[in-house]
Each structure stands twice: as structure tokens, then as C-alpha cells.
């Protein structure tokens, strides 16, 4: 029996030497050292031997078992090293192949611009106040100091509806009247709001003009609101929106609902003021119309204009996005071509 064990031992060692693959190695382990492996069985059979042979056989069988186990571990380590080396050598991929595409969603550029505007104004205490798209003529014009047939009405080409006195709002300014009534507590409480919303103008569609566009109007009313505040506040907005180094200038203008009225220009986002086609070589891009709220408008909002004052401004998010991103055609915004939207 011992001879048989010795020959199994020799054979096992010899076989092990030829094994180069981990599958074969585990097969070898099963055959010799597994539960029904040859060495295991031999050890288990020790009890059947005559008493005087048992000790010697058992000792030898354990030696062989340990020797084979060591040999296995050694071989296993060798094969593992070999396979690792092989994998490192042969497992090369073309890293220039594209990755698996992950579909992503996103927000419309108008929304993105509006959010930036909201965020900047929110930090200055201006909260969003929204009002309706379909407005009455009084709120859109008359209460804003633009009486019927007044030539100032030529500044807005208006969509009228078949209901007399009902129009599509031409600007978000009617929100000034509504906000003053909602928040003004009968002319006793200060207000700081921005009024975003879709506006409509009767215009021929072109690369530079849309019939539908967002506007963000701002309104601050208080007992001590000055034109210097308007200038400082708008300049602060422009620096945050367009860059800390941007200069801002005011120039005289006319809106029936502000007095004095101004236009706000900011240094061109594209050329930085050197002159380019976007700013028509002036170095300035108009970003807002603004002014001190007209006393008649304050009155119409329930305030006493001898005690209260306010400023207001209006800006166009799509135009800002166009100026910042060099978009040449305003019609892109509502065409919603995914090849445009996915660039944002």
C-alpha cells in the first residue's frame, strides 16, 4: 500500500509539473487532494492497515499530502502570475474608441437664462412675481400712463383679441400694476420684484424680431428709492451676469411709464468694447430700458408719489442669450430644433 502511495505521489508531482492552466490545476487538486482524491482516500484507509504499520504509513501519507499541498500552492501561484502577465500583455484595447453614450436631458436656453437672471436678482432681494399673458388694455397701457390713441402706443405693435379691450401683453410692465396692488398693501409697503413672462408683438418674423419673447421686468418701490440706486443695482446685475469687469452706461430714453427714462448699455460681451458686428462697432450692447417709476403709475398702483418713489427696468433674456452666445437668429428659440437645444 505504501508503494502505491509513493507511486501516486510521484505521478502527482509529475502531472503537476505539466499543468499550465488554472482549470487543469483545480482538476488536479480535486483528483489528488479533494474529498475523494487519491491521497485523501489513502489517508482514510490507514485504519484498515495492521496496527504496527499504521503509524509509519500515516506519517508518510501526511507528509505526502502536505508536500502535494505545498506543491499545489506553489504551482497555483506560478500559474496566477503567468495568467496575470498574459492578461496584462494581451488585454490591450483601443482607447480611442468612443465610450458608451449616456443620454442626457437638459433645459431650454431661455429657461437657463431666466434662472440666471432670477438668481442674481434674488440675491438683491427681488422676488419673482408672475402675471397673465392675456391682458386687458387698461393694465397693459392706460394705467401705465399710455392713454388710448397716444402716439407712445406706436412703440408697441399689439396683438388684439376679438374680445374688445383684451390684448396679448406687449411687455411685462402690466405686472407692475398687478404687483403694486397685490403686494403694496394699499400703498403702504415697499416692493422689490422681478416680473418675468412671455410677451407678444405684432411684428414680421425675422432673424432679429420675434412675435413671442420673454421679458423680465424689475420694480422697486419704497420711500427712499433713487436713480442712483437704479444705476448701482443694474450695474451690479450686469457685472454678475456678464462679467465683473464689464462697464455699464446709461443714456437718455423715453418710456411713458418712467420719468426719467434711460437705456442701459453694457460693454459688448463679444468684443469687450473694441467694436464688432454684434455691437455694430459701438462697443456697447443695449441690455435694458429703465427709469424712475412715473408718478402717474405710482398713483395707479395705490402709492402717493410725493412720498414714495420707485425704479423699474425691463430686459430681454433671449437677446441676452444671443449676445452672450453669438446666436444670430432669434427664431431658433421657439423652433426647438434639437441640434440647437442640445448645445446648451
Amino acid at each position, binding site marked *: 500500500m505504501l508503494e502505491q502511495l509513493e507511486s501516486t505521489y510521484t505521478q502527482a508531482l509529475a502531472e503537476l509539473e505539466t499543468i499550465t492552466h488554472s482549470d487543469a490545476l483545480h482538476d488536479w487538486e480535486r483528483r489528488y487532494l479533494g474529498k475523494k482524491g487519491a491521497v485523501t482516500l489513502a489517508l482514510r484507509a490507514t485504519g484498515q492497515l495492521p496496527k504496527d504499520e499504521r503509524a509509519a504509513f500515516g506519517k508518510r501519507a501526511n507528509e505526502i499530502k502536505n508536500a502535494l499541498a505545498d506543491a499545489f500552492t506553489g504551482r497555483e501561484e506560478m500559474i496566477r502570475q503567468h495568467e496575470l502577465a498574459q492578461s496584462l500583455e494581451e488585454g490591450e484595447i483601443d482607447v480611442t474608441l468612443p465610450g458608451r453614450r449616456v443620454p442626457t436631458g437638459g433645459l431650454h436656453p431661455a429657461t437657463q437664462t431666466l434662472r440666471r437672471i432670477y438668481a442674481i436678482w434674488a440675491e438683491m432681494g427681488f422676488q419673482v412675481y408672475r402675471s397673465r399673458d392675456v391682458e386687458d388694455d387698461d393694465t397693459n397701457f392706460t394705467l401705465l400712463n399710455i392713454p388710448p390713441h397716444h402716439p407712445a402706443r406706436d412703440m408697441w405693435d399689439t396683438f388684439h383679441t376679438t374680445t374688445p379691450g383684451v390684448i396679448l401683453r406687449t411687455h411685462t410692465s402690466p405686472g407692475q400694476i398687478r404687483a403694486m396692488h397685490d403686494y403694496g398693501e394699499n400703498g403702504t409697503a415697499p416692493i422689490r420684484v422681478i416680473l418675468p413672462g412671455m410677451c407678444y408683438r405684432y411684428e414680421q418674423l425675422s432673424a432679429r424680431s420675434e412675435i413671442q419673447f420673454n421679458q423680465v421686468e424689475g420694480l422697486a418701490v419704497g420711500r427712499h428709492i*433713487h436713480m442712483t440706486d437704479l444705476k448701482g443695482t443694474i450695474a451690479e446685475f450686469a457685472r454678475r451676469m456678464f462679467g465683473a469687469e464689464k462697464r455699464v452706461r446709461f*443714456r437718455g430714453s423715453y418710456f411713458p411709464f418712467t420719468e426719467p427714462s434711460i437705456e442701459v448699455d453694457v460693454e459688448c460681451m463679444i468684443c469687450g468694447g473694441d467694436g464688432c458686428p454684434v455691437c455694430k462697432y459701438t462697443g456697447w450692447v443695449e441690455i435694458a430700458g429703465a427709469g424712475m417709476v412715473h408718478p402717474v403709475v405710482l398713483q395707479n398702483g395705490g402709492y402717493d408719489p410725493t412720498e414714495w418713489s420707485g425704479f423699474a427696468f425691463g430686459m430681454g433674456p433671449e437677446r441676452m442669450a444671443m449676445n452672450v452666445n453669438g446666436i444670430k437668429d432669434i427664431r431658433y428659440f421657439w423652433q426647438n430644433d434639437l441640434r440647437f437645444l442640445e448645445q446648451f
Partner: protein
Amino acid sequence: MKVPISWLKDYVDIDISIEELAERLTLAGLEVTGVEYFGIPQGEPPEGINLPPSDHLVWDRDKIVLGAIREVKAHPNADRLVLAMVDYGGDALEQCVTGAPNLFAYKDQGPIDPPLLSPFAHEGAEVYDGHASDGSRMILKERALRGIPNRSMVCSEKELGLSDEHEGILLLPWDEFGHFPPGTPFQDVLGDAVLDIDMLPNIARAYNIVGVAREVAALTGQRLRLPPLDVVAEGAPIAGEVSLDIREPELNPRFTLALIRDIELKPSPGWMQRRLRLAGMRPINNIVDATNYVMLELGQPLHAFDFDTLKERAGGQPPVIITRLPEPGEHLITLDGEDHALDEYNILVADTAGSLSIGGIMGGLESEVNDPSVDMLDAMGVELDEDAERLLHGKASARRPATRNVLLEAAAWNFINIRRTMQSQKMSSEAGLRFSRGVHPAMALRGLLRCIELMRQTSGGVVAAGHIDEYPLPAPEVQVDLPVSEVDRLLGFHIPQDEIVRILRALEFDVVEEGDHVRVTVPDHRLDIGTGITGQADLVEEIARIYGYDRIPDTVIGDTLPRQRANTALEREEMVRDALARTGLREIVAYRLTTPEREAMLTPPGQPSSWPQSGYVTLANPISADKTVMRHTLLAGMLDIAAANARHTDRQLLFEIGSVYWQTGQALPEEPVHLGILMTGPREVPQWQDGRRARARMDFFDLKGVIEALLRELRVAGAVTFAPVEHSSFHPGRTAELRIDGRAVGVFGEVHPLVRDAFGLGLDLERPVVAAEFDLGALVADLTVLRDIEPVPTQPAVYQDIALVVDESVPAADVLAAILAAGGDLLEDARLFDVYRGDPIPAGKKSLAYALTYRAPDRTLEDKEVAKVHARIVKAASRRLGATLRA
């Protein structure tokens, strides 16, 4: 409005560069949108200012000079050429070969005295090519013309870039230009620049050269020189020749008349023609030009009548000029040939025989100054369409001889009524444009006097002594009491009182200082200053803009911060946007205008619509046929956009948040905010690893997955249910209504194949389009703001699967509910992982397989505990739904 600098300088000295002037005017509210240069170089802009570079021709100071043609000789070899002998200020005369026809009359007539003055270009000068139509330029070089050497040129207007005129050379009148010595750089003779100023509606007072000059004077501290109003009136008095009858003083507060006799109708003098051209008007004749000149100069539009025609119409009696409203049904044919059916508020100038003109806007055909040679329409800013052109040409042949006696009208009109009339009659004219912005009645007489004198100077006529001036409704004198503190209050910084007074006086306000108040009287050339607190604000604007907006400091708002309010609606709307974008959807923003026909396509033909039936907000003046009403739905617009994108993009996941508009009983519509979702195309984006194999397309359950993810992210508080419904826009068996606490939020499902086909997305049944339209307010009405977060489990879970066989008719939601109810506290989760039909499951049945997770929070579960719950689940499912455990 075009403002020639040379003309402006008649009324104000300009001691700054044109470019700085442009900048100062712009900042003061008279936006200079462009500067056109003639011959002179563009100047350096002020510090920090950029100007669009101008590529105009600059007349070289040495090479383009004033020349004096002293003799014109015949060309020995050519009949169509002559030799001009030009004194250019040099030692000898230069012989210049030219074909200018306007020199032929002088050919071989000997020395010309005084000489003919003309621009003269030396060899090497750059000029425009007179024969080219593309604006190309050339450098003069010596070459022989028909055998005679030539190296210089006398120039036409076109060659200098002054106009397109190239019929002959530019000849300047001696009496006007004779004081320039020959050789004077031509820049100094006719060099000029024209400002193009964008005039805002409130700035009528400056819609004229004098008005701009007044602004310049105030801005630069110069004095304003007004044009003289003296008239040499040596003719028989006007009194008794004509009378006035103003019937509507509210609409026509003032009317003035002057008369000039025995005029010679002819072209106006060169200087006047040049100024009109520079200002953008075409010269017509001396009478019409004088009215246009004064309109441009002072802002008062005028109207010239043929006095003999008026007398004829009055049967030889002194005519009565009547201003009145139209008779019912009255018509007037204006001089552009348009037949106007008059509205009851259109004020007319008439005589006893009928109407003559629409007051302040346009004359009638009958009583115009008769100039058989030309049309006057261009000069009046009237554009003709073809029909009118034909009508007029028909008339031209029948015109009477040239006018001899002119009755001149200068009137004042209610500006609102003028604008209303221009709109209703769809008319426009230079006069109407000015009157509709408000011309002060005081300007009428000034314009009348200035114009009649210019007519006298340019026509040889004799002005009748006196004038007629009816002023039944004098404009009130406007006074404003302005506390100086009010300037501080509105502007936020201090402007000294003497500076305030200086600015107001520079603008011709009359100012009386009374302590710390100033009493201001508004000058009678402007109507834009109100009274009381409005007037104070108006004056503060005048002070601020002349003081300079660039000098106003920046401050931070020091006023009380208003109460800040929660803005739940917007916050939740933005949450929905973010959640959907994270899910992989792309936001769109569509036109909110559509047509009822487009939205009707949401329902297959012949079927009743499931959309709410309410009225549309309908445009009275739609600008295009595809945008006539405000939308009722987002879905129609989304389908249009998806169809447009489908031409290049297979896989689309879109959403929109925006208002829809339902006209209910009220004047103003309801404007609920909706959420729309649309998905179509392959579920997964194509990957190169997969080659060209067909990919599964998104269906109902992809959409429902997005909706469920949204509901989870929003933490909708109410009980969410999905109920099968039928809806005309959707596939009858693949449509659900989303309900929260039993209230409908909206509908979603597979778009009806006929509907998607109608929108251009095809009928292919293998390419479904799924969509949703929800009421956003209902969706986000009740969200769990604060939620208890479960601790992360510390105990191991036991996982077991269960497959239950139920009748086809049993909804999956009921099976899940039964499992969860029976599972009790130990059942943590039950997730459906398979739905199976077919062998060995009997027909009419289906197998639903769930992966169950059991866990106890405080201990390791034992197998027998799990077995007990599992058995309970099987039993409950069997009892409630007739389910059997799949073998």
C-alpha cells in the same frame, strides 16, 4: 431724422468733434444711430467710445480743391469733349478735358467772368468712378483723351460721393461760393457730415434742426441763434382776401394764413436744394421746398394752396377756409390718389365748395400748388402704389398752368387725433408724423412767417401785408413749482441749485428762484412737460439728462427690504423641470399661438374630442395664418416639434411647461400651466458595440416610468393611481389617467396612430409616440415637504421569489396590493420581475413573478418565520384574486 452739421451750425457754434457731439446727444436721449460723412475724414472718437468705421471717400486736401473755370475751349478732335481752363490757385491755368454737357454753352465764348466754380481733382486724387454703378473708386492718372493730354478733372457730384448725379459737373453759384479763393481744399467748401438721429415719440420738440441745435447748445454751453422771423411784406393786405372758420378748436386750436402773389415757380436755390437732399428730402420747386425747409428747420409743417384755385372754387369771392369734421359719408381723394372714406373724427380743411385736405396730414388732389413739371409726393414723404401712380399720371396731363399766387397755411392740430386719423386712414406723411407727436400751437405763426419770407426770397413774389391768425384755444402756459429737494429725492444725489437753474435756462425754460424752490415756466415750443408732480418728474429728467447720466453715481439700495414671500408655484415648477431633465428629457418652449384647425387634428376625424370644450382666445389681427389663437393644449405643439425633429433625430424625449388658454365666461381667459411630455424612438441610444441591430422602441411603460420617477422625486403626498381611460388623442387600450387622491391630473399614453400620422409622425405601428398632458398645478398641489428618512438597514435580508398565476383580467396593481397587505411588516419590498403567458400556463391566465425582500429591523430572520409569511401571501392572493402558486 437726418441732421446736416453744416445746417446745425447756422444756429449753434460747435466746438467739439462731430464724434463727441454724437456721443453727447446719444447719452442725452437723442440717439445718433449713424454719421454719414461727405469728403471730410472721420474724427477720433472721444475716450472710451467706439464708432463704426466709415469707408467714405475723403477728399484729399491738396488734390481736391475748388477750381474756377475761366474759359471753355473746343476740343480739336472731338465734338463731345471740351477743354476747361481751370484756375486751381496755381501759377498757371490747368487744361482739363471734359465731356460735361453743362460746359458746352460756354464753348469758345472767351473768358468767363465771374468764373464757373467747380470741384477740381489733381492727378493722383482718389474719386468715385462716374461711370461705375457699384461705387468703385479710381485714382486719376495722366492719359490722352482723343489726342489731348489730360491729368486732372472737374468733378460731378457722383465723383465726389455727394449724390448719384453725373449728368454734368458740379457748378457752384458764384454769389454763394465766390468768396472762396481758387485752390481752397474742397473739404472746406462742401465737406459735411450728417447725423442720423432716432427720434423717440416724446421728443417732437427736437424733431427739427433748431430743436437739435437747442439741445446741442444746452449740452455744450453754447448760445442758440434762432432763425429770423422778419417778413418783407409789400403787397396789398391779406385782410379781406380770405377768411377762416374754425369749428373744432379742440382738434384745431390754431390756424394761420399768409399770402404771396406773383411768384415764379422754379427750382429752389442750390443751398436749399443741397440742405433738403442732405436731410433726405427731394427738392421739387421753390414753393414746396420752402415749406419742407421750414418743417425741417423749425418742426412746423406747412401747406401751400394755389390761391387762384381756391378763388375759383369760391366763385370769385374771397374763399373761406373752414376746419370741420366730415359730413356723414364724406370722401376725400388725397394727393396720393387714395380715396378715403372719412371717419367722424378726421378733421378736414375745407372751403365752401368742399374738402381740401385732411388736416395736418395730407392735401387733397384738387387744390395743390400746380407745378406742371414735377410730382410733389416724394417731397412730402408719400409713397405711391401702382394704382395711385396711374391715376396721378392720368391727372398730370390735365393739370392747369403753374401756380402764381400761393396761400400758405400753418396750423396746430390735436396730436392724439392726428395719430388716430393716420391709423384709421392708414396714411403717413412727414407732416403727419410731426403733428402726431405734438407740435406746440405757438410754432404755427413762427413757421408761417419764416416760410412766407423764404418763399419771397426764392420766388420773386410779393408778400401780402399782414397775416390771418385764428387761435380760439390758446395752449395754456405750463408752470411747475419744483422744490430743489425733489431733484435730490428722485436722483439720489445733490445737484446744486445754480446748476439746475443753468440747465433749465439753457433749454429755454423761464426760471424764477424762490428760496429753495424754482418756479419754472415751460417754453412754448414743447408740449411734453406736465404739471404738478408729473411736471416735476419731467423737469428732473431734463436736469438729469443734460447734467449727464454718466455723472450719476452708483449706490446700493438703502431702503427697507420688503417682506419676502414664498413662491411655491415657481419653486415647484422648477423642481419638475429639474427632475425631468435629470431623467434625460429635453425641455422645449413652443409658440403659444396656434390655430383651432391644428388642435382639431388631435382628434381623429369623425370622433368626438375628449379635450375640454371651451372658447379660444382669438386674435383680431393675426400676423400669419398658422397663428390665430392661443393654444388649448401643449400636445399639438409638441407633436409639431417632434415631427420637425424626426427628420434628423430618431430618439426624442421632450417636455414643455407652459400656459394654455381657455376662454371661459370672463373677458380674460384662464391660463393654467400644463406639463407636456413626449417620447418616441429607441429606448437606448445606439452604441457602436451593438452594430446595426434593431433596438427596442419606447412605449407606454417608458413614459410611465418617467412619470413614476417624477412622482417619486416630487414626493407627491396623495395616493397616486393610474386608471385606464379612453381619450380621443390616444390609443384606446393604452391610455391612463393619472389621479392623485382620486383627482384627475391628466392623461398619458400612446398617441393615437391616426393623430400622430396627421402631425407627420407616420402611421408605422412599430414606431409608437407616447405622450402626456398634465395640469401642473394639480400635479404639484400637495407635496411632502418634510419626510422621515429610514435608517440604513443593519440586519440581513432574506430574498425569495414568488410567481402567482391569475386571470388575465386581474390588474397587476391588485396583485401587488394583495402581496403587500399580506406580507405585513416583515415584507420590505415586492418588485415585479416577469409577466409570463403561455405553456404551461393555461390560456386566459398569466403568471406574475415578484422578487420579495423580507427583513426584520432588529434581528436576523429565521427561515421558518419567512416561510410563514410567504405562505400567508400565497393564501391571501388565492383568496382575494383566485391566484395559484406557479409550479
